[in-house]
């Protein structure tokens, strides 16, 4: 009797040790995970495209975007820690129903754009491996749906995360690819902008893919869920700031690696071109490596983003409980999840260039980012809500400048695009 029972005791011991490791990773951070969620399919392609079209020139924009990301992620984390509420429920409680509805609609549109981009990413990755997207995307849509609604999502999630770790090859590739370091440095730190339509379009897409609304929701929710309070603010702050900086350093290495490989050859047209950037690391296998990473990142986000949207909507109408406790029984949200996957996959199936589609969805997100930024800024400014943890006057200035900067750029480019549709400009 004794002997047969031993292994289970042993397993219990191992499990505890594992749990301790998980706990350490967990403390390392929601900030890290949240900010790095920006490096999904849309992110990879947008950064690669920036590197391909403008070589190192976009690095300065990325530096500004990093500042904005740090500011907004920190505010989101602080809102979560101070109020113990998710962003959507804060917006519902603090603004009129109309404004709250407006923000939720923006969020729905932005996230739907992301879902489209994830399926486009899946299509592009599998095309690289020689599978037609008309087979790949429907299969992936059914697979993701089944895994989340019927299957064991947790295991699938781990596999996806592992696959997407492939992109850690980018920093190495950037080092091995002999970029012109002088050019990298000057383009990063010496202020410069270009007024050309193409440059501004990519700049907005960069903002959209880096400062994605759902990252802010996730940041606040993760802090709340882990029981962070105002007394842990220091640690939470360090986590969110380092997470944002780390994520953007990775993004910048994607730009650098791509610029070193194919910089200045004009806009990115295919995933095969983007894969060139990994040749210094992987040689002939670069394409496969890129495809595997893109697939992992896309599948992960294709499952997570629609879930996050459903959860946000549940928070808005006050039905969080039904979703978090028994997602499978919450018909409305299963429906919402299904519709998102369906629309996302359907749009990604439309004939056309997947890489261009990816860029356009990130551009759309870039137009919505400043709206969510404004909501977050107003919330974090409110002393009635935040007490002593409200934005300090100095922080308020910086955050306001970031918001206005991002907003002005988005508005300018949006107007430019609309004029272009009507044949003006």
């Amino acid at each position, binding site marked *: 009797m*004794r002997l047969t*029972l031993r292994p289970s*005791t*042993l397993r*219990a*011991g191992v*499990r*505890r040790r594992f*749990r301790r490791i998980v706990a350490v990773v*967990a403390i390392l951070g929601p900030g890290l995970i949240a900010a790095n969620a920006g490096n999904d399919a849309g992110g990879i392609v947008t950064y690669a495209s920036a590197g391909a079209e403008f070589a190192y020139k976009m690095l300065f924009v990325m530096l500004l975007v990093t500042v904005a990301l740090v500011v907004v992620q920190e505010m989101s984390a602080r809102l979560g820690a*101070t*109020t*113990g*509420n998710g962003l959507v*429920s804060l917006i*519902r*409680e603090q603004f009129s*129903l*109309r404004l*709250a*509805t407006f923000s939720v609609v923006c969020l729905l549109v932005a996230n739907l754009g992301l879902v489209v981009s994830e399926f486009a990413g899946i299509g592009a990755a599998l095309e690289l491996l020689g599978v037609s997207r008309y087979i790949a995307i429907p299969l992936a849509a059914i697979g993701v749906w089944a895994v*989340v609604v019927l299957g*064991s*999502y*947790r295991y699938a999630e781990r596999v996806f995360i592992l696959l997407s770790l492939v992109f850690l090859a980018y920093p190495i590739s950037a080092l091995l690819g002999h970029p012109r370091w002088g050019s990298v440095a000057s383009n990063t730190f010496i202020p410069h902008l270009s007024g050309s339509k193409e440059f501004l379009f990519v700049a907005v897409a960069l903002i959209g893919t880096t400062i994605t609304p759902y990252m802010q929701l996730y940041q606040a*929710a*993760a802090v709340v*869920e*882990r*029981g*962070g*309070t105002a*007394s842990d603010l220091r640690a939470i702050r360090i986590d969110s700031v380092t997470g944002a900086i780390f994520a953007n350093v990775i993004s910048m290495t994607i730009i650098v690696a791509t610029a070193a490989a194919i910089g200045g050859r004009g806009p990115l047209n295919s995933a095969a071109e983007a894969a060139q950037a990994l040749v210094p690391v992987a040689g002939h296998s670069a394409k496969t490596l890129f495809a595997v990473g893109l697939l992992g990142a896309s599948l992960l986000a294709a499952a*997570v983003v629609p*879930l*996050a949207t459903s*959860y946000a909507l549940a928070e808005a*109408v*006050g*039905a*969080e*409980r039904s*979703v*978090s*406790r*028994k*997602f*499978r029984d919450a018909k409305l949200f299963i429906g919402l999840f299904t519709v998102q996957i369906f629309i996302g996959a359907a749009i990604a199936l439309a004939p056309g260039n997947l890489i261009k589609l990816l860029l356009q969805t990130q551009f759309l997100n870039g137009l919505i980012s400043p709206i969510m930024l404004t909501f977050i800024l107003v919330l974090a400014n409110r002393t009635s809500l935040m007490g002593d943890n409200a934005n300090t006057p100095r922080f308020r200035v910086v955050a306001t400048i970031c918001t206005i900067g991002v907003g002005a750029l988005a508005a300018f480019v949006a107007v430019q695009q609309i004029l272009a549709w009507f044949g003006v400009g």
Partner: protein
Amino acid sequence: MLPSMRRFRGRLVDQRSIREQLVSVAGLIGRPVELAGGVEVGRVVDVIARPEDARVPHVSGLVVRIGRRKAFVPVEHVATLTGRTVTLSTSQFDVREFERRDGEVLLMGDVVDHQLVDIDGVQIVRASDLYIAPVGDSIRLVGVETGLVTLLRRLGPRRFRSRATPERVIDWTDIQMVGGLGNVRLERANRELRRLRPGDLADLLEQLGQSQRRGLVDSMDIDVAADALEEMETDQRDRLLREIAPEKASLIIAEMEPDEAAEAMRQLDEDAQVAILAAMPEESREAIGRLLQYEDESAGGIMTSVVIAVRGETTVDEVLDMLRTMDSHRDDLDAILVVDADGRLLDDVSLFELAVADRGRPVGQLVGPPWPITVTADASIDEVVDAVLSNRRSSVVVISEDGHPLGRILLDDVLDALTPTRSWLRANVGDR
């Protein structure tokens, strides 16, 4: 209309006379306030009620914007109130700026769009709207609307906004407000909350935002709060303990079972520990302080210090008397300890042995095999599990190096120690 009627859980909104006169609070906001002759004097800004005064609270007045001021109009001055207009019975009113007093709640500002506890359905809801209605000669707050259609109605054109759309209404008698009440003792709340099982209450607390749950815990009776906190997820419980005032936290922790209390304390940082211990009654401070010395993943860390230790000459009758005073610890006692003159452990006498023994016998005569299973306080969880498994007993006794009993580990403590804490991800993907 019929199917949705079935959703009415309360008795009040089921009453026909009330149902036909429901006034939507959200729809009333911005509506004109008129004198008897039809002259508009201002617009409704908010509706005031005192939810703690009665099961079905009275509306005590309106906040009305008159010119640039917000004035309070007591309900006695209201002649008629429909969804579209409010008519006053007097032309004299106090135009001093409205100031909220303790116990007064702004129905639009504090309740609509905020979280509430539905005690009957044991869930957190968010109010889409509130319904008030004339009951007898007063206006009462009768129900909370939680439906989606109502949200759309509020977004729609103005003329639809004031139409009551009873869809999923919960009687106010089944609702507990959280937060926004100021410093009112919630007599009613505690009575209502006692209807819930501690586990359900813990669930509800986990779902509330910070200010709401701090408000709720602050107004809860200590024993109710302690029971609920024992059932909460550790992350969430730690968070809550750091949010509330140390005095309250220390009272709650002192009321918890010592092992649960020590576990909760261990998660707090040293400053918080010191503050909470300092504010605690002497007896609990000693017990918890002792437990705190042990590593949390050791025998000392998971044991309960609730034990009955008696000398051999004590009679069975006397021991039974002691047990009768320990009713609140019934789950932690499966045996009593017999110790020698120096307080060292001699034997572990199960309640069964006690129950069947002659009342007058000294317990010393019950000492004998099976001998107690003991571990030292620094034993690892694995050693505890081995000890329990190899002897098939329901508990083990924790002793010090020199043989003094320190506490007891029951099977459920072992289970707790072995069960992994649930992942935070469940919030996004549900339980799977």
